């Protein structure tokens, strides 16, 4: 699998002794006995605390970083005033300390050295000047040769935003992030086509007040999207009805009154039958439908034959259960949520599946209602003065133009445009990658490697030697979120709020914040005017003053809430309300999709099923990890340092598998995992599927805690089903079989 031009460098090729490792371990100092001494001040009050918001996932919970007298980061505690966390971080946020303390961190810039006479490529340590000079000269070169548009940015998270600014100033809008086409894109377009509004993040689901929560393959509690989990618990206290549709007994399925162990890939059939019951048993609110929705009669006609009996044959869910659950939803309406989910790129008809969820919400009138979806709002952060960005000749929109509803850059299309043999209008020649570990976020590894082999230059910025750094020409070591300023957090919520991220300590090792890297690159490219500040705190302070606050105040508060200006949280009964769709109504029949030539209402399509001896690959989350990002974290890897393969006991018997037995997986295309995975025999999974947590099986030896632990599900995803509407990469149509004889692989 290793290519010649961009030979993968296991960062270990660099002598361990070569790095100037300034280690500093967390120590609370003093003897344990001290804490029983009444003279001992409580630890909580003894620390210096600095405002931050968490970067271990995208929820961005505001928190306080606690630093002791010796300057060690001791713990991170949620900010009580923050609507994203209410003073309680999730395990990953609490374990964020480990991100700072991880001695495997990238410590200094690295530059690729070509191996001579067939020797392997290696990295050498470089100064910041060398590394940034090299990247700037490549950026200039690409611009002269092909145009700035040919230099693409693939990014995620807060650091990505600084490089986005740099790239736009430089003249490239060829920007994409896996968070769209490899994750939540379909739901934004499916709900957008129905309600004229994206779901967005955090999801505006009013879980705390809902009476009925319907989860379709969404596993809140295994994904620790903080307030979703908190409100789920609150709703359980208030006796919420939970209906979970999942081929696996997820944690939340075990807390549900109704667990529908559906045959995978048949969700749309179930939802069509639910619509049928709601419409033909007249469980909807006629007045609401007439006033607020468009296309009810068309929908009624459309679902006429989709009876629960019809769906039973497809989904294996009993008709009585389908009827009963439909009734439960209707009883709770409008305080009901058919949850859009988050990682929703499954079978290629994902926008249509999300449409089905949105239509159910529309039929039950839950959008804009207490216990359904609240009307979100956020603070608009004033724009720091800068020249206008140049207008590139082409960018992400042109690269993604085969997909009419792609509303963010498609990483998969940028990757395709980077492969010379692919027939694409525009050609991408170089990448800058920030904060996303592509080998774990992009399916079809071979294709990704083809692109990596073709591009002329790759710069990677990260805090850790993630797999993707092994392909880089230059590696930029970023300091963690605990050591830097970033943009103010402003995200949609019930109450608009902003949060500050300020450095609690100086960057460890020779790492730097990404705002600094972007500025220094900008200066080398003659773009000083876009970076008119010495320190990013100046930008923040300027913005805060415009908002009637200041850096000083925010350092004290961490979070500041603002009054709503867009109106009430909910739509009042009977209120004249215009949805931002073509018709101004909730579109049960989508005029937008019809105009574009797509099905205006979702249809069920049968998807391929596993052949004899193969099982459908289902992957998911563990609450203590954010994909591969945390797999090496010293605090979190202790809780789980590998993924296991969930196998139904019937299947285990058939293959004579034992618990913790190591096996390799091979998929339908003959691809075998790089590492073996341990078996976990459990009744929690269907016999036609296997399950594993995503983000393990790291191939970079420099990740001392996670290298080779568990297997990578992404490697098994070679059959990618593209959503024709928005270009998402459906990844749940892959089937694996087991290789028991380890030697047959290892020899």
């Amino acid at each position, binding site marked *: 699998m290793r290519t010649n031009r961009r030979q993968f460098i296991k960062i270990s090729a660099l002598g361990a002794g070569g790095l100037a490792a300034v280690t500093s371990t*967390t*120590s*609370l100092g003093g*003897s*344990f*006995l001290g*804490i*029983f001494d*009444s003279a*001992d001040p*409580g*630890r*909580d*009050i003894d620390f210096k605390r600095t405002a931050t918001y968490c970067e271990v996932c995208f929820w961005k919970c505001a928190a306080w970083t606690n630093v002791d007298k010796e300057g060690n980061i*001791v*713990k*991170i*505690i*949620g900010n009580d005033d923050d609507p994203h966390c209410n*003073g*309680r*971080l*999730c*395990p990953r946020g*609490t*374990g964020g*300390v480990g991100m700072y303390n991880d001695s495997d961190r990238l410590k200094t810039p690295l530059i690729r050295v070509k191996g001579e006479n067939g020797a392997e490529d290696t990295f050498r340590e470089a100064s910041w000047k060398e590394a940034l000079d090299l990247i700037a000269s490549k950026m200039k070169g690409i611009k002269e040769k092909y145009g700035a548009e040919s230099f693409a940015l693939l990014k995620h998270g807060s650091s990505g935003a600084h490089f986005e600014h740099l790239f736009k100033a430089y003249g490239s809008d060829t920007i994409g992030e896996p968070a769209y086409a490899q994750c939540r894109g379909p739901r934004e377009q499916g709900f957008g086509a129905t309600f004229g509004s994206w779901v967005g993040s955090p999801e505006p689901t009013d879980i705390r007040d809902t009476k009925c929560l319907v989860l379709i393959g969404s596993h809140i*509690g*295994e994904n*620790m999207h*903080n307030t979703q*989990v*908190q409100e*789920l*618990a*609150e709703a*359980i*206290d208030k006796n919420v009805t939970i209906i979970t549709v999942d081929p696996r*007994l997820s*944690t*939340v399925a*075990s*807390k549900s009154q109704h*667990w529908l*162990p559906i045959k995978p890939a048949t969700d749309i059939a179930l939802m069509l039958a639910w619509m049928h019951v709601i419409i033909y048993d007249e469980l909807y609110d006629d007045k609401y439908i007439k006033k607020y929705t468009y296309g009810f009669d068309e929908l009624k006609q459309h679902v006429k034959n989709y009876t629960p009996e019809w769906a039973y044959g497809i989904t294996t869910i009993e008709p009585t259960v389908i009827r009963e659950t439909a009734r439960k939803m209707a009883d709770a309406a409008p305080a009901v949520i058919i949850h859009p989910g988050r990682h929703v790129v499954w079978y290629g008809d994902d926008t249509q599946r999300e449409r089905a969820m949105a239509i159910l919400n529309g039929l039950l009138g839950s959008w804009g209602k207490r216990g359904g979806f609240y009307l979100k709002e956020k603070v608009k952060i004033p724009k720091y003065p800068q020249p206008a960005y140049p207008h590139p000749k082409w960018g992400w929109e042109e690269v993604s133009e085969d997909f009419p509803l792609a509303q963010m850059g498609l990483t998969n299309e940028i990757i395709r445009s980077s492969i010379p043999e692919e027939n694409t209008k525009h050609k991408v020649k170089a990448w800058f990658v920030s904060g996303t570990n592509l080998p774990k976020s992009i399916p079809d590894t071979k294709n990704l490697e083809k692109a990596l082999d073709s591009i002329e230059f790759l710069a990677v910025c990260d805090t850790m030697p993630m797999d993707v750094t092994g392909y880089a020409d230059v590696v930029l070591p970023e300091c963690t979120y605990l050591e830097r300023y970033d943009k103010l957090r402003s995200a949609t919520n019930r109450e608009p709020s902003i949060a500050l991220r300020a450095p609690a300590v100086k960057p460890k090792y020779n790492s730097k914040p990404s705002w600094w890297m972007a500025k220094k690159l900008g200066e080398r490219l003659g773009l000083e005017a876009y970076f008119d500040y010495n320190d990013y705190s100046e930008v923040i302070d300027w913005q805060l003053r415009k908002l009637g606050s200041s850096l000083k105040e925010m350092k004290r508060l961490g979070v500041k809430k603002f009054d709503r200006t867009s109106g009430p949280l909910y739509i009042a009964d009977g209120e004249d309300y215009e949805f931002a769709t073509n018709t101004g109504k909730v579109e049960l029949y989508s005029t937008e999709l019809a105009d574009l030539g797509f099905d205006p209402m979702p249809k069920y399509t049968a998807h391929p099923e596993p052949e004899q001896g193969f099982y459908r690959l289902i992957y998911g989350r563990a*609450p*203590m990890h954010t994909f591969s990002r945390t797999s090496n974290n*010293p*605090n*979190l890897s*202790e*809780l789980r340092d590998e993924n296991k393969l969930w196998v*139904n006991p019937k299947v285990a018997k058939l293959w004579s598998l034992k618990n913790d037995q190591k096996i390799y997986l091979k998929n339908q295309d003959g691809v075998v995992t790089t590492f073996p995975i341990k078996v976990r025999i*459990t*009744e*929690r*999974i*269907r*016999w036609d599927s296997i399950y594993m947590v995503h983000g393990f099986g790291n191939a970079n030896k420099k990740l001392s805690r996670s290298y080779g632990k568990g297997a990578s599900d992404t490697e098994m995803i070679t059959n990618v089903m593209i959503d024709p509407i928005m270009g998402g990469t459906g990844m749940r149509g892959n089937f694996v079989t087991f290789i028991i004889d380890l030697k047959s692989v290892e020899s």
Partner: protein
Amino acid sequence: MRYAMAIDTKKCVGCSDCVVACQTENNVPEGFCRDWVTESVSGTYPQVEIELRSERCNHCEDAPCVRCCPTGASQIVDGGIVIVEHDECIGCGACIESCPYDARYVHPEGYVDKCTFCLHRVTEGLQPACVSVCPTKCMYFGDIDDPNSEISNMLKTRKQKTLAPEAGTNPHIFYLV
């Protein structure tokens, strides 16, 4: 005054935040923990149930670890909290053998360590670290001698169990089921 903990298994999602918060609060060395999460699965697909439990020292009323400790390092302090005075502990491990809950470990510095109910926080009027971090707020800590405390009310209204009651140690971690 008698401290105890009630943990609602209907709400716990097994996220282990309680474990991480304990580690950072109490500087628990890498590779060890004072609390941990277990999952038990029963039934056959699709009639399957799981129970998730955050477990730790039960601060037993009749604590064998205290009884067998040759130096008196293991002791019961105010509020029924079982602690180990590290300076008096010789690391003989008798208590580890005697504990039916496997709640203790030998700290790399040679003494035995375990959950203290975050006594240093409790004396400051704070909740134990695990309780104050739990995203589902499924843990209730307080004085069961006070009939009006939140924990007393939970124990009055909810079905509950303790682990290994047959060991006869009178454990004080209650699981609401």
